[in-house]
């Protein structure tokens, strides 16, 4: 019984944020359908740090993409904070992502011609905040990931670990409730990976963000409040 986190159990019932029911994602390959996801049902509570594990090709990224609103399911529903993401049209979805989801990718995906500050500022350009409010939020986000002194550096002037921390700052600058990270430590050395994982854990524990992270690394998985295993498109316990 002690293995179960009381906190996550409670929050699961108090403030759930993601509801997934009978979710399937099929890809047509010639005459046959390949199921990247097969009848997945899942609830995620606000403030959880979910870790998605499983062999390559098991559907982890697909699940993450659907929750984050950059991919659509073939069947089933995925509701995030009472929004049926699959029902939104392209432009509503873009707007929804801007306000609700922060993305962290394996390969950082910063814009190479923009400084750390400008990269973090990018999602705020869509918000209508004035320049001084933007500056304030960007500075806060960069300080939070420990890069307050690297604002004017271009991505190529930063180490991999620092780039990923800039990416995390970009993900949280709009203060979204949900942060998704697809193998965020996959390209990092052990020390940088630890830094990144600690930041993500702090985001869920202290800032109340819901974090969903895909990883292969059991050490990284240990940072989560709950681990889910996917195999052939299904969640296995």
């Amino acid at each position, binding site marked *: 019984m002690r293995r179960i986190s009381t906190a996550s159990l409670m929050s699961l019932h108090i403030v759930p944020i993601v509801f997934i029911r009978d979710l399937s994602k099929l890809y047509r390959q010639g005459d046959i359908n390949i199921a990247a996801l097969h009848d997945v049902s899942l609830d995620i509570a606000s403030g959880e740090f979910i870790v998605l594990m499983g062999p390559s090709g098991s559907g982890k990224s697909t699940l993450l993409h659907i929750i984050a609103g*950059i*991919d659509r399911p073939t069947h089933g529903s995925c509701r995030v904070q009472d929004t049926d993401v699959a029902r939104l049209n392209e*432009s509503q979805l873009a707007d929804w992502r801007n306000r609700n989801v922060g993305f962290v990718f394996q390969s950082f*995906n910063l*814009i190479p011609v923009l400084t750390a500050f400008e990269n973090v500022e990018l999602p705020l350009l869509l918000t209508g905040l004035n320049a001084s409010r933007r500056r304030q939020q960007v500075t806060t986000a960069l300080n939070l990931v420990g890069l307050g002194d690297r604002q004017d550096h271009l991505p190529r002037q930063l180490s991999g670990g620092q780039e990923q921390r800039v990416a995390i700052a970009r993900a949280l600058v709009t203060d979204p409730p949900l942060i998704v990270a697809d193998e965020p430590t996959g390209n990092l050395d052990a020390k940088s990976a630890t830094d990144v994982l600690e930041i993500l854990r702090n985001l869920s524990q202290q800032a109340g963000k819901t974090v969903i992270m895909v990883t292969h690394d059991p050490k990284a998985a240990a940072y989560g409040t709950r681990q889910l295993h996917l195999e052939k498109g299904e969640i296995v316990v």
Partner: protein
Amino acid sequence: MTLGGFILKNALRNKRRALLSVLSVAVSLFLFITLQVALRELTQPPEDLGSSLRIIVRNRVSLVSPLPARQLQVIEKIPGIVAVTPFTFFGGLYKGDERFTSFAQFAVDPVRVKDVIIDAKVDDTEYASWVADRTLCIVGLDTARRYNLKRGDRMQFTGTFFPCDLDLRVAGFYHGTADDRTVFFHQRYLDEALGNPGTVGCWWARAASPEDAALVTARIDQAFANSSAEVRAETERAFQLGFISMWANIKVLIGSICTVVVFTLLLVTVSTMSMAIRERFRELAVLKALGFRRRELLGFILAESFGLSMLGAVLGAGGAWLLYRNLDIQKLANGVFLAFEVTPRMMGMAFAIAALLGIFSAIGPAFSVARTSVVEGLRTLD
């Protein structure tokens, strides 16, 4: 950072490529404008009232065959003719010119010519002194300025077409015609130098009104039909147009060069732009994930390609406009072009081409960016 700043940083991210695409637009539009101006100057002589009143009478055989001097009395009496003067092209070489002198010299009757070339303005005393002395000449103001000529200066011409030379002195200057470059001297001076052959090069006459001109030319032709020297009379305007019709092929040629220039430019810009965007596919997918909508990405792409090609237009078309405004084209083109004017219409065309280039080269990349989902875009490798 503003959205404009973001677009600018993207456009300049590969500085050499941005520079090359701006320059290719600039050079092509410069060439385009140059060709258009040349075409216009070649095919549209300055139109003035004088050129539809004036009638040129030449030998039917060819422009260089002389006409008998006695035709004067006949032409004079033709109804509708106000004035007529001999008009003999001397075509000599001035000063150091070795093969070609860019201004013409004509032998005329100094009294009669005043009523034929009515737009020329000459000082009364200068005119009187010219009429009184057959060794004097009247010089167009442009030529006078170019050679810094003053009254009393000597002008010597070596004959190329006629077996004699001219040794003239400047009586004065004229201005106010479409081409103020010619030197006029006495037909009698030429007659004497040639031993009075009793011929002239052409006749220039003036009709009473433009409406009369057509009728008058027919009458002149008729007056000398079946004589030993049949003539061909036409208005100065028709005469000019006759020369211009020789340029018709050139017009087609220039038109096709312009088309090829624009088309090549289109290919170059389109491929440059799609290269620039393809490189950034993954970043554009990231922007989409961050919440940028299709129309915003389309705006970025359009602003970038539009901005680059417009900059090219400003440099190329603007450069051509500035250059040709400040260039002494008469000197440079040896007098073939009297003017080399870039019209607002040409500038408009150049900028319209640039705008279309910007739009056309954005369409392809914008379309493929819109069609690619975030997930697909993220999967593309850098």
